[in-house]
């Protein structure tokens, strides 16, 4: 859910990077953080608990301007690596305005992508979010791996049609296109 700060004249939206372990969620966040001008982004914050680590930072997208005089701000979250605790996965999605699902194009990890995606849908549903009317962008990451899975194969396996983008996050390819796509979907959804 967006959050309005009247004092700061800001409206913030939460974007969560979700996906199976080692799919490149943290790399995506790092690349976005690196490519933003310093005056437009906050510090990369790492929240450590005994069980898990959450990465977070916020930024002002220049190209999306303002909504009714309020500066648009995005808060980006991810839990790096494999998330062992169901509760953490679920909690991260609370109040999210959009999700980027980072899939691993390695054919050996196909099933992990599918089960992580299904879990995400279940978790969203537990917050009364209709996943078919919710901004989700599917990123096919690691397109440079051998025998990369076919684009479209995941959507078929999960029976959902969502916008998808090819990426090689380690090289920065497709990273900004992904964040731009999800941001626009969120703003368009809010302004309807």
């Amino acid at each position, binding site marked *: *859910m*967006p*959050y*309005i*700060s*009247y004092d700061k004249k800001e*409206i913030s939206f939460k974007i969560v990077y979700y996906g199976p372990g080692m799919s490149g969620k943290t790399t995506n966040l790092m690349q976005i953080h690196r490519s933003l001008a310093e005056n437009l982004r906050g510090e990369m914050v790492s929240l450590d608990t005994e069980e898990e680590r959450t990465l977070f930072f916020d930024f002002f997208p220049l190209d999306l301007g303002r*909504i*009714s*005089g*309020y500066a648009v701000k995005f808060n980006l979250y991810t839990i790096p690596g494999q998330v062992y605790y169901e509760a953490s996965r679920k909690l991260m999605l*609370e*109040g999210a305005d959009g999700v980027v699902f980072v899939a691993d194009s390695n054919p050996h990890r196909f099933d992990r992508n599918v089960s992580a995606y299904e879990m995400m849908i279940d978790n969203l549903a537990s*917050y*009364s979010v209709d996943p078919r009317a919710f901004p989700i962008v599917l990123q096919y990451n690691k397109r440079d791996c051998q025998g990369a899975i076919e684009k479209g194969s995941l959507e078929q396996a999960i029976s959902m049609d969502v916008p998808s983008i090819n990426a090689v996050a380690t090289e920065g390819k497709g990273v900004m296109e992904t964040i731009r796509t999800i941001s626009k979907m969120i703003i368009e959804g*809010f302004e309807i």
Partner: protein
Amino acid sequence: MALSGTLSDLGIVDLVQFPGTGKKTGELVIAGLDDEARLFYDQGGLKHVVCGDHSGLDALVELVSWEEGEFEFRLGSTCDEASMEIDLHRALMLALKTRDERREEARKQAEEAQKIAMNHHPPAAPPVAERVTQPPPAMEDLQMTEILSAAVAHFPYIEYAAIFHKNGSKICIWTPETVDEQVYNRIISGVANVFGTHPRKELQKVYLTDNLGTCLGSAVGENYLLFLAAGDDSSLGVISIAAAKICTAISGASE
């Protein structure tokens, strides 16, 4: 289960948003200084708002100005009525905007009313001590022209002199011969602009020099500016001394 607190702990804008974040269903009751407001949420969506005699967005507009009061959130409480058709956050932004517009309108009306009242009852003249630094606006233009002419007569190199208000409106001009008024008007409005936009608001002097001569703008009290133009044969120091003496003459004459 109920969650309660006061508006000094949690501001109204944050409070109204919090059931939305957790997708809560329930009733938020806020007891303000004069009225009571009730907001009903269904899975985080704002469905119905009542505040005194108002309902819907109108009620929200009333509510967003509240700074004092106590609240309680009653989880699970529902209501059959529905007065809100737009999303909670857009409704909140709209309510804040409407509130701000109404405040601005009220402020303008109050200003207008004050202006009208001032015209009917002009304020008493300020004490003498105050008038030294702030010449009264009622100063006669004719009298000012005389003072300016007498002061400028000591400085033959001055080609043009004017006293104007800091808002750019001219009060009087002195010039020994026909000059291109328009050129000076443009410079004067530029100088007034510099004084008006200077971030520290206490600018004393502005010098403009080119190969034809020097122009100077100097603050006289809090409201007026002296503008002088001299040919290229006069130095910055000379024109600065002239400005200081003319300023003293103007301030002294208004005592």
